């Protein structure tokens, strides 16, 4: 699914990276726990979150996330947006709350980051 399509579905505003909306999104994860994002997301996933601090951008950078969607109209500060722009991570914001935003995307077929669907990015020790 293209990021541009997700923007339309969630009626989202682009905070930075309008030139990167043709990126492919393979899966999504809704979380305010960056530790869980680091542990369970796959690369090229979209993160939906209500957190707006700099660690969200860092987490996206380390995990190779494709973009970040802030829910419930949350907006990060200018420094956070600038950092995302430098890292070429598109930032969007939607007025929909987390549950509804995730539901819209899931209903349209965007997969989650469940371990059952595919092994996690990180090497399994089993």
């Amino acid at each position, binding site marked *: 699914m293209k990021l541009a399509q997700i923007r339309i579905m969630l009626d989202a505003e682009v905070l930075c990276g309008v030139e990167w909306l043709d990126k492919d999104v393979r899966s999504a994860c809704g979380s305010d726990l*960056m530790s869980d994002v680091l542990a369970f997301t796959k*690369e090229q996933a979209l993160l939906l979150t209500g*957190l707006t601090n700099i*660690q969200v951008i*860092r987490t996206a*950078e*380390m995990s190779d996330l494709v973009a970040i969607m802030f829910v419930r109209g949350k907006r990060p500060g200018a420094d956070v947006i600038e950092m995302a722009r430098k890292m070429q991570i598109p930032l969007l914001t939607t007025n929909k709350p987390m549950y509804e935003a995730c539901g819209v995307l899931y209903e349209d077929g965007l997969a989650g980051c469940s371990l059952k669907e595919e092994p996690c990015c*990180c090497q399994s020790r089993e």
Partner: protein
Amino acid sequence: MPEQGIELEFALESADFNGAGEASSRIKRTLQQLGVRPDIIRRIAISAYEAEMNVIIHAYRGVMRAEIYSDRTELVVDDEGPGISDVSLAMQVGYSTAPDHIREMGFGAGMGLPNMVRCTDKFDIKSVKDVGTKLSMIIYH
């Protein structure tokens, strides 16, 4: 890539949340420039970032060192801090001593050490109470 490896070293300071992740980011960019496989870089970057955050959250100060060879990356994170009184407990998923203000930032869910174990090929932790903690990790390319 030179056979003797490339060494990167970073000083980490307690509670430096704005700078948190800068060292891991530099390591990641270096690995990208060296042409290491993206899925391997991702595992190294996640391990480094989790370790870096742990120092910033829990320790007083620390040093992160990355040695990048053609076949592997070695990460050593050595901190001065309170240490971990029960390492086996700290290795359990969900166990955390992080205070509320850290949890509000999205960390302190007790996933860091188990995630480092999962992302690395070799993982070693040594901790002395009231002295500090040393993590040694190897990820093969």
